[in-house]
């Protein structure tokens, strides 16, 4: 399973802070993103950062490992 986390403005547009998604061998971050973006198009309009296990990832072709924690995030507004 892949744990997907959403925060703040993305939760507001997607309705859920945490999801479990099925893991399949060879799946990439882009595959996961595409699947979620089709389900939550309004939320993904504002997604501009992606993290895997708490690290920024820019290359969405990255293969995912089972049990990864993946976060799709809106532009930050802390500080």
């Amino acid at each position: 399973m892949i744990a997907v986390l959403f925060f703040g403005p993305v939760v507001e547009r997607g309705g859920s802070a945490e999801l479990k998604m099925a893991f399949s061998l060879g799946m990439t971050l882009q595959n996961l993103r595409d699947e979620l973006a089709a389900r939550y198009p309004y939320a993904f309009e504002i997604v501009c950062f992606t993290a895997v296990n708490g690290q920024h990832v820019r290359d969405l072709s990255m293969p995912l490992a089972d049990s990864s924690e993946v976060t799709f995030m809106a532009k930050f507004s802390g500080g």
Partner: protein
Amino acid sequence: MKDVVRIQSDDFSQDEEIAALKASSKRMGGIATFIGCARDFSEGRAVSEISFDAYGRMAVSEMQQLRLDAIARFNLLDARIVHRICTVSAGDNIVFIAAGAEHRAAALDACRWMIDELKARVPIWKKEITSQGDSWVSPHP
């Protein structure tokens, strides 16, 4: 001694933070700090409160890395970052950044760089609560 990088709900004391920063070296000639506060007005609307959401684990690790990057980049003697995650009212403190260096230019440069970088890379989001409703803040690109 409190951690050099923290996320917390409580307010912080500048005196305590500066004392902790100074404890690292007697060679520190300049300390620059930045405090971000909640404003009562934003984008033409009165704001009564601000609340925050954060990806806590990642926010702390990004802030720790940011501190180390600033120390290396500006040759700082020490640096500290505190960000509150809670609901604050106008005038309340939100974030504290401190940079200590042998000379003032490095401390001032580092302080500005750290708050700019924090806003760009630390996963924290701010929601403004107004009498017309709440809204998540979208930073200008």
